[in-house]
């Protein structure tokens, strides 16, 4: 039991508890704030597993940009639904059943496979080496991702614009 193992298990507990709290909150704003905690934990976990660049990207993009986007949408449009109080069995029962089945199968695979018994060694990839690797071997995928982001931007603008024109016509 080294200090790295302790950090890993503490992070795992934080991530699982924060995520479980996030998905059960009635108020989406509370859920988003808990999710920020969960993603910060994931960022530190990435750092522990030897990916400092991805840790920074996780915190900047996931915990920063994406969650703030959620927060803005929830605040601007007061998206509230009439979800029933408590956790009705009709709604949560099938989900929990599927989840428990799926989790037991995944745990069985993870523990029975001899590959899973290997211990991870600490290693670190510097951002420079990682960038070199990605742009030498996967430059085409980077281009595809940039195209995808551009199309996402176009789609978001288009969806927002069409709806606004329709709303003005109705007024």
């Amino acid at each position, binding site marked *: 039991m*080294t200090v*790295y*193992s302790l950090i*890993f298990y503490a992070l795992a507990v934080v*991530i*699982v508890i924060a*995520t*479980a709290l*996030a*998905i059960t909150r009635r108020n*989406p704003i509370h859920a988003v704030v808990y*999710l920020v905690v*969960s993603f910060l934990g*994931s960022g530190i976990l*990435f750092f522990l*597993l*030897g*990916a400092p660049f*991805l840790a920074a990207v*996780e915190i900047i*993009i*996931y915990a920063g*940009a*994406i969650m703030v*986007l*959620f927060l803005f949408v*929830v605040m601007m449009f007061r*998206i*509230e*639904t009439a*979800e029933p109080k408590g956790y009705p069995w009709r*709604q*949560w029962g099938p*989900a929990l059943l*599927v989840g428990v089945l*799926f989790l037991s199968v*995944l745990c069985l695979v993870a*523990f029975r496979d001899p*590959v*899973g*018994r*290997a*211990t*991870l*060694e*600490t290693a670190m*990839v510097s951002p420079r*080496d*990682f960038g070199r690797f*990605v742009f030498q071997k*996967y430059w085409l*995928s980077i281009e595809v*991702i940039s195209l*995808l*982001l551009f199309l*996402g*931007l176009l789609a*978001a603008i288009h*969806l927002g614009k069409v*709806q606004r024109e329709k709303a003005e016509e109705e007024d």
Partner: protein
Amino acid sequence: MIVPYSHVLVLAAVTFVLGLVCVIARRNLVMTLIGIEVMMNGAAIAFIASGLRWHQLEGQAFVLFIIGVAATEVSVGLALIIGAYRRVGSADADTYSILKG
């Protein structure tokens, strides 16, 4: 030495299943999108652990693409939710029943 590879995989599996339960059980569309984000994060944890397990950089490269796809998906998904909310006046998945005969 950190931990056995299987423990990291179990953490990724628990995160993924929590997201799955959220997508299935919640009726608020924003919460559904949050569940998808949680699932993608679980997949990213598994990829990074695999990259460390076999000392290959491909695992980390995949996570870069997962984060790019997640960002695009959230922006388009939130725009769609706002559009549906303006049209129907609710973000409850059960109210979208125009096609019901």
